[in-house]
């Protein structure tokens, strides 16, 4: 399933890391016994600057896929309710929104709905870990962070031609656009720390969006 948010022109909503301000879209589920909802999966974001404040998020239509697990031996019908909360802002104002969405499901064979194709597309826009990309290493260096990606697989990834977003909030200053440059077999980027960075930095997730193809990549690092 998926939740679709249609945003008016001139307005934007927010990613998992909203940037300097804003709020990610979240959902509280009301589910029958035994049903489990996964995380709301966020597609790769866009970067925007409104009134001098850098944000990460979406314009236009955004689709958040979410995976459900039905209880073993599910019979009959189930009613799934989502209480969705989001924030939209333009350069002037921010307006919160919420909606209660309900869908009823019946047991039976898989039938592709007209939306199935949209959900498939939305899933492809969600960043995934990929073999050829990574690992990511993070080193603290003179008030900055040195990011190193060893991208040795085939086809050879070109990190220099990617847009890069920090998923983990409060680590990298959102004002800084992350640009990797080639350094032999590895790619490196030196980035300024956010003023709210914890010491030491323990974890960092990046989303890398290649310009030439639609599949965004997830890079994850955790302190050993």
């Amino acid at each position: 399933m998926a939740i679709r948010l249609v945003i008016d022109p001139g307005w934007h909503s927010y990613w998992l890391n909203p940037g300097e301000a804003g709020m990610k879209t979240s959902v509280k589920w009301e589910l029958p016994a035994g049903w489990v909802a996964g995380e709301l999966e966020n597609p790769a974001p866009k970067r925007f600057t409104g009134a001098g404040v850098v944000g990460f998020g979406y314009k236009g239509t955004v689709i958040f896929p979410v995976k459900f697990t039905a209880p073993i031996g599910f019979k009959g019908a189930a009613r799934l309710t989502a209480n969705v909360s989001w924030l939209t802002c333009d350069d002037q104002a921010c307006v919160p929104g919420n909606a209660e969405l309900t869908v009823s499901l019946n047991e039976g064979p898989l039938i592709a709905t007209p939306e199935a194709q949209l959900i498939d597309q939305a899933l492809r826009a969600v960043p995934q870990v990929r073999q050829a990309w990574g690992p990511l290493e993070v080193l603290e260096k003179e008030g900055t962070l040195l990011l190193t990606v060893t991208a040795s697989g085939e086809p050879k990834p070109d990190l220099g031609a990617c847009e890069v977003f920090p998923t983990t909030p409060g680590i990298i200053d959102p004002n800084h656009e992350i640009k990797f440059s080639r350094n032999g077999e590895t790619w490196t980027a030196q980035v300024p720390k956010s003023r709210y960075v914890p010491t030491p930095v323990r974890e960092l997730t990046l989303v890398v969006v290649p310009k030439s193809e639609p599949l965004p990549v997830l890079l994850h690092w955790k302190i050993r």
Partner: protein
Amino acid sequence: MKSILLATLVGAFALVTTHAQEIGKAAPAFTAKNSKGETVSLADFKGKTVVLEWLNFECPFVKKHYSSGNMQKLQTDAAAKGVVWLSVNSSAEGKQGYCNPEKMTGCIAREGVKAAHVLLDSDGVVGKSYAAKVTPHLFVINKEGMLAYDGAIDSKSSTDAADVATADKLFANALEAVIAGKEVVNAKNKPYGCGVKY
């Protein structure tokens, strides 16, 4: 005196003499007009604990804390402990949340604001000297004039007033520690809210 000269050139009524905003360092000095047209300086409160709260009554995150009564309660509790609470409105003229003194006086009465002063910083001089990013963004300055907290009001980045009760009280805990002369555990954390409308 360079900063004073610049401030005068752009017609600002707030003067800023230092630009540090690091925990444990001297809090940036400032002078600004309050909603009653009086001149207020940080230096007026020497020897007292001071709270700075960035404010925009049209921001849904600010509304969350005023509609729930949380902000007013924090202000009242702080005043009872001798803390000087300064709310700062850095919305530029023509931007969301901008208030002239008359409008601000109306908002203070309507919302039941219990701050000692509400400062009108429409040129953003005070806001930028603290690098105030969002509303609400909270700072605590200790009795020695050092910055002791820079961060969120609480841990739940939402616009839902129901979340106030269950959030970690990051700011309230920090203020309590500062008043008690103890070290603040989480002195710097990312605040949530609307961008300040400079």
